[in-house]
């Protein structure tokens, strides 16, 4: 799959293209028809298919019926009717709880939280109800049909409340799954898999990539497996792990490191909880070094869990401490966003430090 990333910022960053090849883990589609689409279109296609294939699935959230603020839900209300695709009032807690109730009665509730920053009022419902529903009812009821979709991550000018990455909070909750795609092809497959998975899933979409990421996506219905990481790039000196929009930054760092003779293996975790420890362990056993990178602040971010688990499993094999190149421990800043973010250069420096440890 060739993925073209076109960066067209408001300040006119120059346009560049690069391709990277995916290797393992691809589920092939049953049809050969594929079109180049961007992330929000891929998600839109997934939602159309999901609603088409199950008459008891619903999409709701703030402003979804006209298409959503990111256009992910365009056309759904027109095609499936306003009883299945509808706007909710501004109450995230209500939206989440309501979705749990729908799911508990066997429906597929696909709720949208407009920005991941706004998910915190819903956090109580998700942690205390959604995650524990099957467990505390002894499997009498479950809310597996629940999928919460939310745009997350930095967008260049979002500031404190339009840029957060709250995935770590949800990874700490047994009973929930957290899935984050890196590209349009992945997004469609992972979203369909998440919707059909019999567990509640929180699906974070990297908002920076909504328009910027363009990829060939099959028109047909296809799913990608959850809890399976994907090795995007093979290497032998160091393993890099990331997810979502951060992967494109890691990819750039890999290319730069290649020029300095460091061969990097890049892994997309795809599902953060439950995460694919075996793939990462196999990779680190091969390379002996690990670097994790994410936008969320470093302390208590999901990188910490990966680091701790890998050290448990690969202690004797590790040649250097696990490096984490993440956001700083401050609230997501407005003007300082370039300093806060784990940029390519920070990652490159960490790669070199780790390799030369």
């Amino acid at each position, binding site marked *: 799959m060739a993925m073209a990333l076109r960066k067209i910022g408001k300040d006119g960053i120059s346009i560049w293209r690069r391709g990277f090849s995916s290797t393992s883990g691809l589920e092939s589609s049953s049809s050969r028809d594929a079109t180049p689409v961007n992330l929000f279109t891929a998600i839109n296609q997934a939602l159309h298919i999901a609603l088409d294939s199950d008459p008891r699935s619903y999409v709701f959230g703030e402003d979804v019926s006209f298409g959503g603020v990111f256009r992910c839900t365009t056309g759904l209300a027109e095609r499936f009717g306003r009883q299945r695709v509808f706007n909710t009032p501004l109450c995230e807690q209500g939206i989440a709880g309501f979705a749990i109730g729908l799911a508990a009665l066997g429906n597929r509730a696909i709720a949208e939280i407009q920005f991941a920053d706004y998910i915190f009022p819903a956090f109580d419902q998700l942690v205390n109800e959604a995650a524990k529903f099957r467990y505390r009812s002894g499997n009498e009821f479950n809310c597996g049909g629940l999928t919460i979709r939310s745009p997350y991550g930095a967008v260049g000018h979002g500031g404190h409340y339009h840029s957060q990455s709250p995935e770590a909070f949800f990874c700490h909750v047994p009973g929930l799954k957290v899935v984050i795609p890196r590209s349009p092809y992945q997004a469609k497959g992972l979203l369909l898999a998440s919707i059909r998975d019999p567990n509640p899933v929180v699906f974070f979409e990297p908002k920076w990539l909504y328009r910027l990421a363009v990829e060939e996506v099959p028109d047909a219905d296809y799913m990608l497996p959850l809890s399976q990481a994907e090795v995007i790039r093979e290497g032998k000196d160091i393993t890099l792990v990331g997810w979502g929009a951060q992967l494109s930054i890691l990819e750039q760092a890999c290319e730069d490191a290649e020029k300095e003779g460091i061969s990097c293996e890049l892994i997309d975790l795809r599902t953060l909880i439950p995460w694919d420890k075996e793939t990462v362990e196999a990779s680190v056993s091969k390379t002996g070094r690990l670097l994790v990178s994410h936008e969320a602040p470093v302390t208590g971010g999901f990188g910490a869990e990966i680091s701790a688990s890998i050290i448990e499993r690969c202690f004797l094999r590790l040649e250097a401490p696990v490096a984490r190149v993440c956001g700083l421990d401050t609230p997501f800043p407005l003007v300082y966003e370039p300093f*806060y973010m784990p940029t390519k250069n920070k990652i490159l420096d960490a790669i070199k430090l780790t390799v030369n440890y």
Partner: protein
Amino acid sequence: MAAFSAVKIPPPQFTTVRSSSQRPGSSPAHFAHSPSAFNSISFGSAKSVRSRPLFAVSSDVVSSDKTKPASSSSSNPAVTREVALELYEDMVLGRAFEDMCAQMYYRGKMFGFVHLYNGQEAVSTGFIKLLNQSDKVVSTYRDHVHALSKGVPSREVMAELFGKATGCCRGQGGSMHMFSAAHNVLGGFAFIGEGIPVATGAAFSAKYHHEVLKQSKPEGLDVTLAFFGDGTCNNGQFFECLNMAQLWKLPIIFVVENNLWAIGMSHLRATSDPEIWKKGPAFGMPGVHVDGMDVLKVREVAQEAIARARRGEGPTLVECETYRFRGHSLADPDELRKPDEKAHYAARDPIIALKKYIIEHGLASESELKSIDKKIDDVVEDAVEFADSSPLPPRTQLLENVFADPKGFGIGPDGKYRCEDPLFTQGTAQV
């Protein structure tokens, strides 16, 4: 879908406070004269029957055939010349500032999510110009004009929008987070509904100072105003605070700027009972509906609500029917609102209405108003120049103010305090 019509509904018996034209002699007199007016309104209001879709209560201010604002039914103006000019200047400042924001945004000087207040100036001016310096204002992301009305200098607000170190929050808040300790502006909240509990706490503090610490002022309690929109009125935090405020009789006024739209969600389609003022009596406080496009009416309602709060009689819920002339934010294409709805409200532009009022009552001449316009243009230009020439915040500011003690970041691997380590903020990031 928003079946919004300009049909005039005859003023119903309950919310008499809507029209300031109803002077002594007509039934709503009890509003103007009795201190317990709001109490009588609050409990009597639930009984009337209104047809649901015609939620919009028309005002007598600017209707299609009249050109005079309602208050001119009597020959005496409702306000003095000084007050009228003050209100005019404040509204023009709000409008000119927001227009300049739009220009600067499209020129790339301002970034992020910017939400403009055009059209709603009467609410901000009508309420905030009655406040003292020690009264508090809590707003939403549409907060530039609230900050300006409260007295934050235009320079500081513009610099904040540009992200400069001379901004009111030293460039760290941006458009949606205007704070000022000097002027008691408690923010700017990007997240809807989050400011209301904060305002409730501030009101509690004012009451505590007055009653327990006995730091009373001759004019009474310090009042807190919480501004928020129609979408917020469906949020749990709003209801929780209505309950707490009435329970403890806090000096707070909940001002709903009902502009009928929450981004793309029409209020009429999101709310089971679109008449927000009714939610006040459900909690035991007066609920008032006022025409938010008429600054004099807003001011009249505000006067009574603020006086009530200062006397310690507790909170009031005021619903202002208003409209935003621009989209939700500068990134909003604003495709969903119908042109005739926009035209209806554009005809009720509060600044034009006040201007007509001033001229018709002889409070000032056209040229005096024009000189105010010119003065405000100069103020806004100066603000832009100031913001342009101000420095960006230094990198070291990135780590400040996360905790009270900047050393709260602990000690790094080299044994020094992390916040003092230049590499901690630099990394090797090339910007």
